[in-house]
């Protein structure tokens, strides 16, 4: 710090610079907060997607195995988020024999950044599908 004449009076130029730096810091803090929240939002979306993929895999596995076909979805996957998710099963006959079952899971995204669209219809919703062949019972 530069003082004039050693009497404890700060040079106006230095004071102005310090003020500008403080202002920059104060203005930068919200920006930093937004960046950190955006990173957390990205991580949450990735986690949702991984969860949707795991749920779809478990659901289709239980649907094609003879003994578990009628189990309710939330119990099957053990994931409470599935209660509010959109789960669809499609069954297509294979021309070579048998049938292919596809489970599609759409999980509503966890929104951390205000203003982003929520709900299963959101473009940020985690979508995953898994296909397996139905076992002959």
């Amino acid at each position: 710090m530069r003082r004039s004449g050693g009497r404890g009076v700060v040079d106006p130029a230095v004071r102005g610079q310090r003020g500008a730096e403080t202002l920059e810091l104060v203005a930068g803090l919200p920006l930093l907060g937004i960046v950190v929240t955006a990173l957390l939002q990205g991580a949450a979306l990735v986690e949702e997607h991984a969860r949707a993929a795991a749920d779809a895999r478990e659901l289709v596995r239980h649907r094609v195995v003879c003994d578990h076909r009628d189990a309710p979805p939330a119990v099957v996957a053990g994931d409470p988020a599935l209660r509010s998710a959109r789960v669809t099963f499609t069954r297509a006959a294979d021309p070579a024999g048998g049938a292919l079952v596809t489970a599609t899971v759409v999980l509503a995204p966890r929104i951390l950044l205000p203003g982003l669209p929520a709900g299963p219809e959101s473009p940020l919703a985690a979508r995953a599908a898994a296909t397996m062949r139905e076992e002959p019972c």
Partner: protein
Amino acid sequence: MLSRRRHLRGRGASSLLLLGASWLVLAGGLGAGEVVAVTAADARSEQAAAAAAHAAAAELAADPGAGALSVELQAARTACHLPEETAAPAACAPARVAAQRVARANGAGVVDFLLGPDPRDRGPEPAPGRIVAVVTVEVERGLPLLRRLCARHRPGAALCVARATAAARWG
């Protein structure tokens, strides 16, 4: 004059710091995107391999010729290694086709298919009607940054494709 120069130097340093931080955030974001693509492709390939192996086992369960095939496999007369094996039993091809269909439905491709005897049949009491299907699949990772590089130069590289192997047992 000296103070003004110092002030300008300070502003330049903070701008440089801000620019560097911005680049760091950008590079970090892109890197995170690549990591997500890599792990997602790994998970997809594992799912596809498991589903393809299960499909082969389900096909064998519906095939009346599977009992005879299990005897052939135990005697090591075949491994249903198609298309390399030219004189493979007739029950091999439908199982492979079933695995390929399911792998394709999961966005993967079968790169290796094998049938073998159940480990229990290597014990003192072998019995017909038990087969293990082993399927290896490949999924393109679809990396955001390296997509073009993978398509042109290294289509089969480990970074460009995710490979997974799974087995399923029938009988």
